[in-house]
């Protein structure tokens, strides 16, 4: 879907990004993780030509990015920023409709699409006539996402979408984001500095360190790698560090019989006993009183959910 091939970017001869290469496939959630100043947001802005690379090549599908008209490209791309980036002088409905209006879509089509979206993000139609300053942070963020996808973009760019929210709301929004099934086929690229968020939401996470790619991998690969940069990044977070010490992937557990298998049982917290089963072919996973879960996908999300709760 999107390929970066040795992309470098410098501002005033100062190198900000060097030799960035990766490929993102359709429908994937791809996180750009890094400390502030690492260059992760710069990468995001290359996707929709808010910035242009100094060297290297970016492919959108099969097309080189520089051959796609900038305004066209941006209409095919949704963009969500911190606290939504809504325009204060427009009502919620007008904010969501704006990208379609810019494309001169028929009025009826816009109206029905906006109504659909407001329900999809879990708000009712009375919100359409309200102004952004009357909504809570989480609601603003949801509206921001609705506006970004109103034109059914192929690519959704999210720049620290949840970092301005308080911790409880942030977690709630992350969970909602995971449940937004209408985003399933949209390729999502998210910038974050929050490792737990990346592990929870991303299919793959790319750690950026001083303008270079330090590591790309799935959450589990992240937690098990011996890569020094990753270790250092995780090392800042004590809880994650402990999980690493447990070498989760090496555990060969079966669920439902925690007491019987000494190798397979793992008690992570004395207060809420948790029994983990995780092997290549694991099918069961149990967390506390939530009851058993099964199936690989469910297992994976329950696991990530669990980890993020731990952090």
């Amino acid at each position, binding site marked *: 879907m999107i390929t970066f091939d040795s992309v470098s970017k410098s501002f005033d001869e100062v190198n900000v990004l060097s030799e960035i290469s990766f490929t993102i496939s359709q429908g994937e959630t791809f996180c750009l993780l890094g400390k502030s100043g690492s260059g992760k947001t710069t990468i995001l802005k290359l996707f929709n030509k*808010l910035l242009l690379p100094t060297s290297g090549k970016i492919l959108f599908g099969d097309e080189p990015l520089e051959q796609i008209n900038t305004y066209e490209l*941006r209409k095919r791309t949704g*963009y969500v920023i911190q606290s939504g980036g809504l325009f*204060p*002088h427009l009502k919620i409905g007008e904010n969501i409709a704006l*990208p379609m209006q810019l494309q001169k879509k028929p009025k009826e089509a816009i109206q029905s699409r906006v109504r659909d979206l407001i329900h999809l993000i879990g708000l009712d139609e009375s919100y359409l006539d309200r*102004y952004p300053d009357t909504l809570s942070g989480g609601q603003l963020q949801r509206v921001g996402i609705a506006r970004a996808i109103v034109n059914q973009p192929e690519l959704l760019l999210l720049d620290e979408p949840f970092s301005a929210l308080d911790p409880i709301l942030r977690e709630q929004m992350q969970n909602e984001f995971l449940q937004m099934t209408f985003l399933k086929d949209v390729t999502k690229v998210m910038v974050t500095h929050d490792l737990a968020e990346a592990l929870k939401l991303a299919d793959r996470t790319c750690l950026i360190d001083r303008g270079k790619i330090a590591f790309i991998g799935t959450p589990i690969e992240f937690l098990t790698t011996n890569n020094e940069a990753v270790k250092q990044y995780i090392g800042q977070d004590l809880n994650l560090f402990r999980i690493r010490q447990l070498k989760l992937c090496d555990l060969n557990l079966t669920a439902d019989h925690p007491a019987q298998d000494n190798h397979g049982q793992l008690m992570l917290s004395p207060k809420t006993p948790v029994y983990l089963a995780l092997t290549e072919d694991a099918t069961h996973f149990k967390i506390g009183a939530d009851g058993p879960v099964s199936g690989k996908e469910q297992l994976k999300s329950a696991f990530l959910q669990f980890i993020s709760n731990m952090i």
Partner: protein
Amino acid sequence: MDLVNYIQENIGELLSQVYEHFKLTLSAISIASVVGVSVGALISVRQRLAPGVIGIVNIFQTVPSLALLGFLIPLIGIGVLPAIVALFIYALLPIVRNTYTGITQIDPSTVEAARSLGMNTWQLLTRVQLPIATPIIIAGIRTASVINVGIATLCALIAAGGLGESIFGGISLNNTDMILAGAIPASIMALLFDGAFGLVQRFSSKKPGTVVILFIGMFLITLLLFIPTGKRSRLVAGFNAEFIQREDGFIGLDSVYQLPVEIKELEIGLMYKALANGDVDFIDGFSTDGRVEAYDLKLLEDDKSYFPPYYAAPLVRDATLAKYPGIKDALDKLAGQLSAKTMSNLNYEVDQNKKSPAEVAQNFLLTMGIQSSKLREDDDAQVIIGSKSFTENYILAHLFGQIIQAETGLSVGIKPGFGGTKLLFDALKIGAVDLYPEYTGTGMLVLLKPGKQKLNTLLADRDAFDKHLQTAFRERFQLRWLGQLGFNNTFAIMMRREEAESLNIESISDLSEYLKN
């Protein structure tokens, strides 16, 4: 209660002044809003232009308003047009600056969000930047409108009408009610503009689109205001506020000669230039003004002897004379020394040869064999001399001061340029100045204001006139007139020589005949 009476008696005139004032302010603001917002938006897109443009607009703002009006006369004449141009120039800075600030201070992430939706520069400007900046832009227009209501009062001085006519008329006529009748409506108008735009400002953050409708509305009203009404007379008169309002000015002149004519109000200093430029066809000049010669103007003969005598003389406080008796002897040396021709030449030296009044006074005293030195603007001097704000009065004030300094050795300071008889006379009464050059006619008609019958008897006998003047001033004000200088600087109706000759007009009666036909 005099104020209420004054307003009741002059309500028609006042309402038309309010209307003219509103028209000037609103039209200037409408044009300045459109131009100012466009320029502000342009320099926010092309930021390299911003410092230069704002600098230029800033410089315009620092030009004193009367100087700007004077500067515009040779370029676009007198009347409503230059007034609107001047007001427009003053309104520009707050609007341009607020538009630029309003746009550039928008959160960069909002602009980025807009760009990422695929907006081009024009869409970004019209759909995001201008709407978000609207309250700040309106604040700029609000400031500009309040400034403009104030400056518009000055436009009365270049025949643009408005409430300034009452204000300046009142200052020159020593009529406080008249000043208030002009000043109070002007203040109320400023408050109304402020309140109206304040209201717009408040709802504009949510409904910036309606502001566009407001602009269009303002423009339409402006256009309506400019649908021409009434007809023009064959010739146009340019008179100063004092002359128009005074019983012994145009009102009396009209009753003696009958002059059906359109009148434009003009500031004294600007009248001659306006006449020379052809903006008006005749003015009420002073017979000794240096510009009569410079612009080749023709004085019309006062064939019915309407204008009273205006002999110039020093008007001094009794208290000052008691303290420094030498002043009288010094000033009396000037008595009878200045003929109309001499005074006119001195005025010419200043108006056309651009010499300073001080220098001209010094040179004149040399011809009398008196060595003198220039005066300082010194409040601590022993004797303070005031002057009105026209050339002849400046020269006379310097003349008086220099001769006192040379003859008595007292230190003399000068406070030049009082903007009207009332202001200067009040300053004399309270002792802020010790003396100034005044004219007998003004002293009688403006300051003493005798009844009509009494006046007519006095005008018939010059000795009785002077005697009454002297005794009345001593009794009522403790002031004394010293020796008259010799020339009679009376009002005179003057035209461009060329036009007067082509129309065969020699006297005011000829003018009346011409206007009546």
